[in-house]
């Protein structure tokens, strides 16, 4: 009898341990193709954090730290030398060396349909110095390049297997990360299994990771509470109290890299000819009529951070001397009077059709009405809102950005003359100059000064009215230890462990 009990207990222990070795992570939506060169979605980056190592990573202070490259040096402002980690193999056994790095970067730069091309546009060519050293020769100095190499553009693929898979690589991706691709059922799950040959294997404590897309936040919380998932990468601020009230769960909120703002149409087509598009005083009045803190308190439980700049408060490039102004109704009215335009001033704003965004617009509508603005809300499905923005079919557009670790990734494309996501067609030589110069120096103090200059001009013109910086809110089982929040919001699996 005793032997039977002991055996049963042992079996139970084994069964529990076996269960505890699977980590289940809820994603806010399903990812797109699992090919580092072709992927575009934010949630895709979360899966890649388990699947594909990069040349560099970033830490919680947004510093560049080694991953597949152990160190780097700038031979001159246009030459970056990378020293690779010895003894790293891909999931299929291929060795990671300079040839693989050259192959991968060139694939990112040239493959048809690549989304990494723009990120690596500063690179002219990649040269092999020796099997473990690579030289990147740039067209012009580029300080954001290291940050790009710490994201998808820095993911290294095995040349032979990638060539053999061709266009189907994304269906069974092979990389050098801590976990290997096992299976994917679209809209249901992506399963990764532990890679025994991982170079940093001591930090990996799970045998399997399952990523499950859950689009309904209430369902995500229910799954977390029942233990069906161990970690949710995204918890709504309004669900935080529920999660906090459950002793079996933990909430970790940390600064993110993104922002939400209002882009005004200044020069993109006919609809730019609105009073608010043509008159900076009115845009300043609009801002003065808004109480950012109240907006955040009402819609996001006070959890997000009011901001007036497009760089995360977590970034060393954030300018603390530029706090978001509070509401000043008298100033708003004075600015309108100064503009000479009669009230009510109609402003139509395109708002992606999501409950929190709609609510935000409604609260704002009530606020600016007191100053004399008649804010008309045009709720519009997300994909349609993108088209409208690109075609200039908007006066104001309420839109967010997930954020990049280097400030260039949050600013250049949105504010530089003719840049890709500058939907309002803002153009100012002083801003262009600051953005261009900031790309050419790696000195933090110098870059921060350039961005401070940029903000001086931006605050006058207000082509983009920043409202808040969201925080990353992760919910996880209290048994899960070792979770380290990093501002990019990705879930790094190194160090995560399931306690008893």
């Amino acid at each position: 009898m005793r032997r039977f009990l002991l055996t049963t207990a042992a079996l139970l222990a084994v069964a529990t341990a076996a269960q505890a070795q699977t980590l289940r992570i809820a994603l806010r939506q399903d990812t797109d193709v699992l090919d580092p060169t072709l992927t575009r979605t934010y949630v895709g980056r979360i899966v890649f954090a388990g699947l594909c190592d990069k040349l560099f990573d970033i830490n919680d202070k947004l510093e560049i730290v080694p991953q597949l490259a152990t160190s780097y040096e700038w031979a001159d402002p246009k030459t970056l030398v990378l020293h690779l980690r010895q003894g790293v193999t891909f999931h299929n056994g291929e060795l990671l060396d300079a040839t693989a790095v050259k192959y991968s970067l060139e694939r990112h730069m040239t493959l048809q349909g690549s989304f990494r091309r723009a990120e690596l546009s500063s690179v002219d060519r990649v040269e092999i110095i020796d099997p473990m050293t690579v030289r990147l020769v740039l067209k012009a100095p580029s300080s954001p390049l290291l940050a790009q190499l710490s994201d998808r553009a820095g993911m290294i693929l095995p040349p032979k297997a990638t060539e053999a898979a061709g266009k189907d690589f994304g269906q069974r991706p092979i990389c050098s990360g801590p976990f290997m691709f096992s299976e994917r059922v679209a809209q249901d799950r992506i399963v990764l299994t532990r890679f025994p040959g991982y170079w940093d294997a001591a930090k990996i404590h799970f045998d399997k990771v399952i990523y499950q897309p859950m689009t309904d936040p209430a369902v995500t919380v229910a799954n977390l509470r029942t233990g069906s998932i161990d970690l949710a990468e995204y918890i709504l601020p309004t669900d935080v109290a529920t999660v906090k009230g459950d002793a079996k769960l933990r909430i970790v909120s940390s600064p993110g890299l993104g922002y939400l703002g209002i882009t005004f149409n200044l020069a993109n087509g006919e609809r730019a000819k609105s009073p608010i598009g043509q008159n900076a005083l009115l845009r300043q009045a609009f801002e003065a009529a808004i109480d950012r803190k109240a907006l955040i308190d009402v819609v996001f439980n006070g959890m997000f951070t009011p901001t007036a700049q497009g760089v995360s408060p977590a970034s060393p490039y954030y300018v603390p001397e530029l706090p978001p102004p509070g509401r000043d109704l008298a100033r708003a009215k004075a600015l309108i009077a100064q503009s000479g335009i009669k009230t009510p001033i109609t402003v139509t704003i395109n708002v992606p059709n999501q409950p929190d965004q709609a609510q935000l617009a409604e609260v704002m509508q009530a606020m600016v009405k007191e100053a004399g603005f008649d804010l008309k809300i045009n709720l519009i499905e997300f994909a349609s809102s993108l088209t409208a923005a690109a075609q200039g079919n908007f006066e104001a557009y309420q839109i967010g950005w997930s954020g990049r670790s280097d400030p260039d990734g949050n600013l250049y494309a949105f504010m530089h003359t003719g840049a890709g996501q500058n939907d309002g067609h803002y153009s100012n030589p002083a801003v262009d100059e600051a953005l261009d110069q900031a790309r050419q120096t790696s000195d933090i103090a110098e870059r921060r000064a350039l961005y401070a200059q940029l903000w001086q001009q931006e605050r006058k013109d207000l082509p983009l009215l920043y409202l808040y910086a969201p925080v990353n809110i992760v919910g996880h089982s209290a048994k899960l230890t070792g979770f380290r929040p990093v501002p990019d919001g990705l879930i790094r699996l190194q160090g995560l462990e399931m306690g008893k």
Partner: protein
Amino acid sequence: MKSNIAGRIAQIVPTMLLVSVLVFCLQQLMPGDPALVLAGEERGDPRVLAQIRAELWLDQPLIAQYFHWIGRVLHGDLGFSWHIRQPVVALVMQKLPVTLQLGGMAFVIAVLIGVPTGIVAAVYRNRFWDYVANAVGLAGLSTPNFWLGIMMILLFSVNLGWLPPSGFVPLSEDWHQSLATTIMPAFVLGNAIAAVLMRHTRSAMLSALDQDYIRTARAKGLSNWHVLTRHALRNALMPVVTLGALELGALLSGAVLTEQVFSIPGFGKMTVDAVFNRDFPVVQGVVLVTAFLFVMLNLAADLLYVVINPRLRRS
């Protein structure tokens, strides 16, 4: 009768062609440029947009796009998902068993609840059990699926811990877990349809029970049970079968909200994701397959009429 059925089968081809044209054209009316959506955060780069449009034939005239697509469909190739770059046929085959299982279970639940309560309501017309059945039916009709789903998750998963809150396990993997994951969504779906079936069964039974042949059958001294099942129900079932086929067809085209709430990877969830991502090949593929299922179910309903009503065999 045989020629009749052959005629119905022959109708399938033009119907499906018409569906293919419709789904292709309707999609063009959808606002939003797929290239912009697919370009994601690189949407500002005109080179990226041009490249996407060329790769996906979006820079070709509509008619060329249609023939390019339908030509491949006729060879059994529904194309590639633009968003996740997997063959649409593989995606459909992945989702079909899920949708069949969920839809099938929901339909069985609907019939088991709807038809008997409809009969009871008709037999006890304007009496207590009729009111009870009507109240149950009304509640089923007026409860939104997503609300009922979330309430059931809170009760049976979060509070009682009896059932998994969401997800799907295939029957082939673990039938016990499979039933556990599908029972709540199947009930949510079946519940709403049961209410519709109940209302129709009740009114069909009421009109059948008023017929002269029922009075004759009773006058002949047949038992109440015999009169109800052999004479009234059999005739009353005709409109219920028609309705059942339509409802089953709707179930198989995917239950968007229910699949969303319970994270069930079926047709509905796939279609919604595809529409939001402007993943046209997936939308077209799923609509074609579900339209085909619909047509086949209607044919099955026609055949079932013949089984239920022998008079049709002579016509």
